[in-house]
């Protein structure tokens, strides 16, 4: 898992009498194990249910171990490729594709704009720069629900209602608040003298960005990419409100087919779909989590 330690571990239980050490360690490990179980239990239950036939689930309930004889992986396949949702029998794969088509461009665009905004707001002085930064970051604290109506209006005007492109647009703009805040706060730790030296060397706005700022940016790019990717992938309100049918991202599609109420519930297939939907953010976090913590806690130039 993500390695968050940046210093030698301090062990407060390393000294004291033998009895005290044993009891205190027991308490620490006991409490941590209980919480770990509470967190892991839902995931475990869902995972086990993907392996169980429907009759088994209906008969013995959600919380039971799979029967060795009937246990199968076929519900994963069905969930991915052949399960019927809204009359189309293609499983969640096409919604998965929608989610990727939405998340990847929106992550890249919002990160790039955030880098540029952060550079401008931290390294160039202009009139009302503080005010503009304040307004941009206001978006961080704005409840999503408040933006629904304005977005519906804008998407309608742009002819982007019920399109993936519309969702990319919404998520890019919404994401700029975060990416700008992250990048600007990261870039303020880059000494202004570097910019001054570059200006004396004859570099202009873009050359300084390309040659000085961007090469220092990988830690904060990792932070914003993880943040944006997981946030946009997991987001479901905009997807549900602004798209329908075959244009929905996976989060909204899962809600749509599991909550539709008509007919029989396929708990095992739903469970497999839910886990599939959770995999990309999990993967991104495991791959980059270490850098995420470092990027947030470390300045640009040591």
């Amino acid at each position, binding site marked *: 898992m993500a390695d968050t330690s940046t210093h030698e571990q301090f062990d407060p239980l390393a000294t004291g009498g033998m009895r005290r050490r044993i009891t205190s360690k027991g308490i620490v490990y006991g409490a941590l194990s209980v919480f770990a179980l509470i967190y892991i239990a839902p995931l475990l239950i869902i995972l086990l249910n993907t392996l169980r036939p429907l009759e088994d689930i209906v008969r013995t309930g959600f919380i039971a171990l799979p029967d060795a004889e009937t246990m199968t992986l076929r519900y994963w396949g069905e969930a991915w490729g052949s399960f019927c949702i809204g009359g189309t029998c293609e499983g969640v794969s096409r919604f998965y594709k929608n989610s990727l088509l939405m998340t990847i461009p929106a992550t890249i665009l919002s990160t790039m704009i955030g880098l540029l905004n952060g550079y401008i707001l931290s390294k160039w002085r202009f009139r009302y720069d503080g005010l503009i930064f304040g307004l941009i970051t206001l978006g961080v604290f704005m409840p999503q629900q408040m933006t629904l109506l304005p977005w519906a209006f804008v998407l309608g005007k742009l002819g982007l209602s019920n399109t993936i492109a519309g969702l990319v647009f919404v998520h890019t703009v919404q994401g700029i608040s975060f990416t700008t805040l992250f990048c600007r706060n990261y870039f303020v730790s880059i000494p202004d003298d570097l910019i001054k030296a570059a200006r004396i060397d*004859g570099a202009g706005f873009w050359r300084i960005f390309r*040659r000085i700022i961007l*090469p220092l940016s990988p830690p904060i790019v990792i932070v914003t990419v993880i943040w944006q990717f997981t946030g946009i992938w997991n987001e479901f309100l905009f997807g549900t409100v602004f798209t329908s049918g075959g244009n929905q991202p996976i989060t909204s599609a899962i809600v749509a087919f599991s909550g539709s109420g008509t007919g029989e519930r396929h708990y095992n297939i739903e469970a497999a779909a839910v886990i599939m939907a959770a995999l990309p953010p999990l993967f991104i976090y495991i791959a980059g989590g270490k850098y995420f913590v470092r990027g947030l806690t470390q300045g640009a130039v040591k």
Partner: protein
Amino acid sequence: MSSLTIKDLRKSYGEVEVLTDINLEADSGEFIALVGPSGCGKSTLLSIIAGLESVTSGEVKIEDRLVNNDAPKDRDIAMVFQSYALYPTMTVRENMTFGMECRNIPKAEQKDTVARVADLLQIGPLLDRKPSQLSGGQRQRVAMGRALVRDPKLFLFDEPLSNLDAKLRIEMRSEIKKLHNRVGKTTVYVTHDQVEAMTLASRIAVMFKGVLQQYDTPKEIYERPRNKFVAGFMGSPTMNFLNAKVVQSDAGFGVTIDGGDGTILPLPADHTANLAAGQSVIFGVRPEHFNPVHAHRGDTSARMKVLVDMVEPTGAETILMTTVAGQDVVASVEPDDAPKEGETIELAINMSKVCLFDPSTELRLSA
């Protein structure tokens, strides 16, 4: 030809004026030091010369061309920063070629220039390292190298040695001096260290609170400071300032220390213009212009009885912390002449070197 001219320059940040009426010029090839306590506006003035800050009013000319509105890159200057400001992701070589790359200088020429400068500064073996792999002194050299790869009209240094340890600082100081003698470019050098200013500069501009106090040769600044601030800032240990009165006798003008035993310290005749008997003055004597009477070789007619509170040997000289009539006097004497703590001794004063200041305007009185 004057290489840099600053005329009636003012700079304000909003309501706050950080530079007031600065007038300064540097001849071609001259080494100018801007010196003053922290926060007095030295870096701001340098940034204005570099074009990194705008002027509020006044003129900046480089080789008689008005550059007030020119961008830094069009001013033909090179600058060394206190923090060195080396680009952390580039190698030493890339740091040095970045400016040439911006000016579209052909690759072959870039290479030759880097080789020449690396040779001059002996940083050849470092060319492929990153700044983080260099020691403080090496970074300092690279920062100078980056400035030297262009052939500017003006070199600007902003406290380039203040991040080095004492020994290295003295080494680099003499290297800068040698380099300047070799390259012969007009240089403006900011420092808060008066020793650096004295040793390097052909002229020193002493600044305080955004005002240029005095602009003169090191000798003039040291011997004939225009006011009490300049007198106190230049020199270490700092000049003694004693409250005193002017007296007149048959022998001419003299001073007596306030609250003292009334001993008259006779002033040389050429120090007495604009003085009136009974006038209050601040009597300024540098520590090295005191000498224990028993060891003094010259004229000892001006003597002062002091109580030695503390003796601080530094090796080359010994500093005496003394008091006379409740006022502190610091004297520096030959180690062999040093008295013991608690002794009362007589100090002879070299009266031809003393300064008198007006207590209210703090300007130097005598010629």
